[in-house]
């Protein structure tokens, strides 16, 4: 902290020596990202609004005031400062991009799109502008244009989660469902948790692919890889074991959490019972503190029927988890 303070003082002195400059100001360029990174938006606002008052030519300061306002969900105020920055430095793609985001927050969707397009004229490889322009096309169901942009984002940023997920959505919109499934699985491989993972799983299930499923475990919605066994055995494959580690961790944290393990195997109740037991044994293995009664078993020699958005699917061989109501 002491070093940062020394550096700030040095930069302030430097900026005083060089006089007020148009565009990038060393102090603004350093402290703006600091406040953003620390999520100290209000503190950033307090400091930077003053800077803009003192030097209205400081485009960087105006830009960060805009960013802080936007982060505090005040898009109208943000717009004023972002436009001020863009007027001072018209060829800055970031400024145009964030004007676009502010337009979105104000629900001005046509203006939003135009801003991203301006950003891309200035910098065709601007990842966020490509991504959000793609989002605009997705919201308008213009799938082909959206797909082009998501592919571009992925070519620039291989693991971009939003592009990976929405690429699947766009492929689905185009009716290319096999590719949609592959894209969603790729996304889930990298990002198996969170709200996008849940949405990806829902879409996957709607295509009849249940390799991932969403479960309500206690009070949490959780995406898990489905239980799969090595052919002809009751031995779980590695990916399924990883899902069980998640469940075990949740049970470790929440001592009251108890789950029914429900197995289905069409025409073979004995196999269903054995698999339910195998799942239970794996969760309990190495966890002597777990009461086995927290994992009651059920098994059925039938298919599992799953309904998703009015569609009905039958799964011949599956294991599911249902929270025990206390």
């Amino acid at each position: 902290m002491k070093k940062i303070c020394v550096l700030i003082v040095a930069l302030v002195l430097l900026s005083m020596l060089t006089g007020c400059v148009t565009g990038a100001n060393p102090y603004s360029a350093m402290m703006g990202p600091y406040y953003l990174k620390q999520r100290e938006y209000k503190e950033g606002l307090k400091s930077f609004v003053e800077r803009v008052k003192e030097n209205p030519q400081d485009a960087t300061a105006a830009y960060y005031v805009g960013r802080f306002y936007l982060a505090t969900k005040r898009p109208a105020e943000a717009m004023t400062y972002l436009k001020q920055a863009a007027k001072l430095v018209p060829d800055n793609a970031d400024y145009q991009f964030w004007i676009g985001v502010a337009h979105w927050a104000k629900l001005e969707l046509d203006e939003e799109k135009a801003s991203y397009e301006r950003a891309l004229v200035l910098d065709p490889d601007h990842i966020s502008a490509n991504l959000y322009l793609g989002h605009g096309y997705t919201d308008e169901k213009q799938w082909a244009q959206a797909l082009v942009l998501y592919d571009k984002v992925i070519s620039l940023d291989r693991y971009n989660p939003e592009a990976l997920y929405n690429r699947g959505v766009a492929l689905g919109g185009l009716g290319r469902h096999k590719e949609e499934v592959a894209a969603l699985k790729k996304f889930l491989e990298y990002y198996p948790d969170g709200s996008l993972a849940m949405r990806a799983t829902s879409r996957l299930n709607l295509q009849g692919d249940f390799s991932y499923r969403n479960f309500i475990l206690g009070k949490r919605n959780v995406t898990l890889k489905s239980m799969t066994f090595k052919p002809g055995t009751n031995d779980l494959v590695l990916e399924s074991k990883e899902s069980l580690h998640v469940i075990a961790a949740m049970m470790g944290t929440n001592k009251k959490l108890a789950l029914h393990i429900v197995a289905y195997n069409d025409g073979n109740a004995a196999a269903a019972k054995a698999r339910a037991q195998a799942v239970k044994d794996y969760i309990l293995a190495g966890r002597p503190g777990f009461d086995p009664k927290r994992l009651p078993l059920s098994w059925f020699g039938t298919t599992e029927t799953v309904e998703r958005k009015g569609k009905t699917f039958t799964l011949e061989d599956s294991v599911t988890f249902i929270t025990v109501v206390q």
Partner: protein
Amino acid sequence: MNSRSSLYIATLVVFAVSLSFLPASAAGKLEDMAAHALNCGVSSESVEQIRGLSSAGASEDAAVAVLSPLLNACVDQLPVSPLEIRLSEGVTKRVPLPAISVALEKQLASFRLAREILLTTTGSLNESALEVVGNGVGKGVVRSDFEAFATEFGKQPVEVFLTGLTMVSLQGQIDYDYALTQRILEKGIQAETLSPDWQYFVRVVLAARKHGIEDRIIADAAVDVLDKGEPVSSVLPELGFTDRDLAGGISK
């Protein structure tokens, strides 16, 4: 005499005075009316525009018929600038003067109705509220929606009242059921999260309708978002649209 009765009487007096400015016979009256209009506060640009029409060959009757609603709005202390904007638009687009006159009279009638609605429900007038209600009734929003809103929410702070009133107007113009708007407003006001940005919620409704999302579901999403204190833009992702990160990172 209570304050509401005083307001009624004042309104009637203003209305009666305004009638005295209506042209008994248009011929030769334009200059006289123009002087009154300028004196009252009609902008010199608008008056000059109408004088210009007359010198360009329009009949004095036609010019008087166009100026009359502006003067009457001014005398009645109703918003004049919306009429002036409409006049300017009409003249620029070369709309025939009788059509401009009819449009202005219609707008004036809307503002008079707006004044009646606001006075009978809240007992007070506010120029911004008059404009919102006047524009709304002029575009087909039923008066009962405004009356219901003003009766229920008339005691809210001005900013909240105007935000809600604008929502009633804009959402009414696209036939969004008032009962749904009311549910959204009640949540926003109860949770104290109805910021001015919500006045443009109608854009969410339009975008969602394009996707075939039912109005009731849109209202449910809005209520959820208001309950969480999120901004109006959060309704879009709540309805399945893509999201944007308003805080974002520090680089592209």
